[in-house]
């Protein structure tokens, strides 16, 4: 077992542990912190896959942006403790877990069927921002345009939902 393998297993274990932490935490803040750890471990794995640019993006967008936003919302609405409700069907979580395990078993089985190993070592082109940028802005320009529309939609949406209408303020 070479070093890269050991390193992968360690990071993967940390990643899975953090993922379980997100799901299992009682308090939302803890989940968010576990999520942060999880995102960072993934960024490390991206580097081992020769995707340096995406690793950086991962840290900036997910760890730096999304988790912070989630933490901000938790602070805004207050992390409420778990409140039990009558009529809650207790079988639902178990069904969810069973379904999930079934899914991972099936997927793992399918994935293990054919061993995959890159035939040739990549020329380390993919990770370099320049290559990615050229590819994105020439052959995939439509994606950029679409992403622009996507962000415009998100912007409009946030505006629409965040602005409390005047008439309503009077009612409340």
């Amino acid at each position, binding site marked *: 077992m070479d070093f890269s393998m050991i390193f992968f297993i360690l990071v993967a274990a940390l990643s899975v542990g953090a993922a379980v932490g997100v799901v299992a935490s009682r308090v939302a803040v803890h989940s968010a912190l576990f999520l942060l750890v999880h995102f960072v471990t993934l960024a490390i794995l991206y580097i081992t896959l020769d995707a340096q640019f995406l690793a950086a993006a991962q840290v900036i967008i997910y760890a730096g942006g999304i988790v912070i936003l989630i933490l901000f919302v938790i602070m805004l609405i207050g992390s409420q403790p778990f409140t039990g409700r009558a009529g809650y069907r207790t079988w639902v979580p178990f069904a969810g877990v069973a379904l999930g395990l079934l899914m991972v078993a099936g997927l793992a089985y399918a*994935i293990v069927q054919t061993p995959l190993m890159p035939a040739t070592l990549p020329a380390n082109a993919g990770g370099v921002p320049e290559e990615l940028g050229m590819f994105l802005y020439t052959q*995939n320009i439509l994606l950029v345009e679409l992403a622009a529309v996507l962000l*415009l*939609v998100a912007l409009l949406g946030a505006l629409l939902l965040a602005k409390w209408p005047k008439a*309503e303020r009077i009612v409340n």
Partner: protein
Amino acid sequence: MNNAALNLDVNALLPELSMVVAAVVVMFLDVFNRGGRSVTRPVLPWVALLGVLAAAGASVWLLGQPVSTFQDMAIADLFAEGIDLVILVATGLSILLSVKYIPTVNPQTGEIYALLLLVASAMMVMGSAIDLIVVFLALETFSLGLYILSGVNRGNALSSEAAMKYFLLGAFASGFFVYGAALIYGATGATQFSQIGMQVMSGQADLNLLYPGIALLLVGFGFKVSLVPFHMWTPDVYQGAPTTITAFMSVATKAAAFAAFYRIFLVALPAQQPVWGWALAILAVLTMTLGNLAALRQTSLKRLLAYSSIAHAGYILIGLTTGTPAGADAALFYLLTYAFMNIGAFGIVTLLEQPGQMDVDISAVRGLGKRRPLLAFTFSVFLFSLAGVPPLAGFFAKFFIFGAAVQGGWSWLAAIGMLNSAIGAYYYLRIVVDMYFAEPTEETAIASKRSYAAAFGLAIAVVFTIGLGIFPNLWTALLEGGLNQIAMR
């Protein structure tokens, strides 16, 4: 690098572009509101409608052009333009219905119309997409827009609940979709449909990854078009969203998602038809049957129409099950007629809604035939058409879908579909019974809203619901009289 790759055929996406431009114009015009008095607000729906008309013009113009592609990412073939027209019909009718309705829900109409146009343009991109990444981006764009639009009624808990539920389940479903896309990419090394198709055909694809990929893709798709068992969000969201938005999404979402999946299945995975064909057939049977049975028990008009739209998704799915271009054409016609009749039906609901109420109980239509004969007549036309009674458009829509099924050797599926439409007739008929044969109650005594724009929209819908039933070839004549519109690239 390779600058030859930059030959952009913008024409191919002209309709989508017109919609985006119209959205931006609406947003700019909305700015002039801020001066205390709303100067431009009454004009906004008509500006949006102009955008829709421009896009429709572009689509019709493209029908006469040879098939063109945008960098192997999007295609402008007859099928794509047909889907564009369906979505534009849905958008246009929804805007007409919204003119009076939306301001009662949320005064920020500028943002709402702009969002509606952007969502529609993303849906249209979905109809032209020939690349998994484009499909994903377009799917996410219009889904995000719809999450927001279903929650714009800020004063209503039901609406924000609907948005919340729709968002969480929609994002969950997107996860499945994109994981499926990833596995298909893993199996073939490509995201373009034609390349995936070539890889699969040549036997180089890794089937162990491809099949789970198709299955996961189907789950995500099932959520978007509300196939049973992925439908649980539909009734709540349809009930909670503002009614004109519900009308829009019940039709346009289906059109966009079905269009993309026709392309994925017909172009990328035709060889796997025996596998996904059966999966889809089972889903179709479940969807039609459970949708119809659940609709039988509803007392809220919006929930009833929601379950009915689940059942209709099942009928449309039959066209996809066959895996033939004839099935795609039949589904296209179905979607068009569905746009007219279903938005029409929801349009009636908007007129019957009481201020502040987001829904109409089925008993509220009692005696409508006596108090508002024209409204009741219009509603019955839509309901009979939804039930598939000739000579209305809904009959021919079913006829073509089942025709494609029989042609493809799925006669039993067509038979189950027809029996289901008989179940459907029962609950549509129940509304007609209440309208004409029941005495008016106190609830119905309250006058329904009147809106010239909505009346205009409903008139268009009625004319086409009857007209496409008597002259169904008007539509195929528009698509150059030929069948098999889907370009195989």
